[in-house]
């Protein structure tokens, strides 16, 4: 059987491009999905007058690995943080600490499907706070996440 080398090369390149696009597309979808779930969590807070920030953190992390973010909060505002994931069956944890390492008072709400967790805080002082969070999957080695916040 004679195979045209040009045709073979073209087919190979097409398949390779399709594979790359599929991988890229799937990565985009999952990270964006994590943010979508965070925004779903935010919805009820928006109804209560919270202003959701457009900027947010996101990424992919090994299941169970703890992550830390430092963030500026202003006393007098009430803040809500929404941690979302695109993966099913994930245990979400989010804690917020002040500069001295003391956990600040908060209300916590976990989605019944475990796709997001919401944490509300009233910072006792203006300054730098530390958010520590983890996402532990029962089935996946890594998890896509997004963390957004709002204030009022």
């Amino acid at each position: 059987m004679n195979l045209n080398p040009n045709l073979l090369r073209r087919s190979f390149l097409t398949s390779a491009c399709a594979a790359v696009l599929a991988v890229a597309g799937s990565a985009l979808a999952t990270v964006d999905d994590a943010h979508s779930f965070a925004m779903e969590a935010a919805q009820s807070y928006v109804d209560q007058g919270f202003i959701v920030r457009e900027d947010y953190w996101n990424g992919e992390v090994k299941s169970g690995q703890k992550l830390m973010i430092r963030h500026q909060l202003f006393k007098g505002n009430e803040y809500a943080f929404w941690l979302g994931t695109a993966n099913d069956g994930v245990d979400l944890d989010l804690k917020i600490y002040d500069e001295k390492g003391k956990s600040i008072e908060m209300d916590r709400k976990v989605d019944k499907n475990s796709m997001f967790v919401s944490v509300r805080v009233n910072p006792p002082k203006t300054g730098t706070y530390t958010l520590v969070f983890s996402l532990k999957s029962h089935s996946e080695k890594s998890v896509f996440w997004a963390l957004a916040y709002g204030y009022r």
Partner: protein
Amino acid sequence: MGIRCAWIAEGCPWPLNRLRFRYFGLLLDVVKPLMPLFKLMLTLSRRNWMRRLGAALVLLLCTGQSSVCAQGSSAGVQEFDPQAFPGYVVDDVVVPVPSEVFSVLDKLGEPNWKQEIRKLDMPNTGDRTLLALMFGTVVAEGFVAVQAEDRQSVQDIGREVINLSKNLGLSKSVLPHAQAILDAADRDDWSAIRKEFDRTQKTVQDQMEKMKDADLSQCVSMGGWLRGTTTVTSIITKSFSADRAELLNQPLLVEHFIAAISKMPEGTRKHGQVVKILAGLKDVLARMESAVDGFSQESVEKIGGVCSSLLTDIRTGK
């Protein structure tokens, strides 16, 4: 915003500084070989799929490395904090928009926001660093105008946003936002305008990062912060109280900007405005760090003076 993995000991995150110093020597040996990969990732844009694949690879590598670390330093972990264990620091900083501070000032009194609006009279320039700084200040001016509920100012600012985005070559992405600002201004829909200014800034910064102009994206943030802080200090000075002054306790943000400047390409780092901003930020940081018992009226005025002077330089292009 992706993970920028700086390896550090955490868990219960304190005493972070202590852990950071104790582990630093050991960690440096472990992380050093990965630094080129980290740097490569940092140069890739936020939404770049390659970066995400890279992030996954680095996570895998770090996972392997962290287990090596744990074996090598398990006694150290026990010694310092039994709860401490390896984790990642996401070192992206989300800079608050000015309205986050403004909303507190509103709760503490009734500032005269109209008095705080500054007339826009931007010079024509093709200098992209200056344009990015100007863009940040103009968006922040938008937040002041929203606070003042000043329709005319919002419309003027909306038009200036369009002009600057054209000069930055970003008008296609910005025009829908600018139009939404102008439409919302017609309806006096202040919350929609506030949201749209935030979106505008994010769109511009995302586009800049996609075009490998992360330094310009940082300039947008810095311009916005300088404009916002000029307003905050002005209001605090007019009606000083410890509660209001405490709003200036923002060392994280100033440190972030100083670090961002140090990572900029030489051309941007040595830009006249950026050099002046760096000097000003160091001055401001020193005042923040020395305000252990709170900010005095004098230190608020000094911080305001520094920010206001830098803002004037940006807006006049001097």
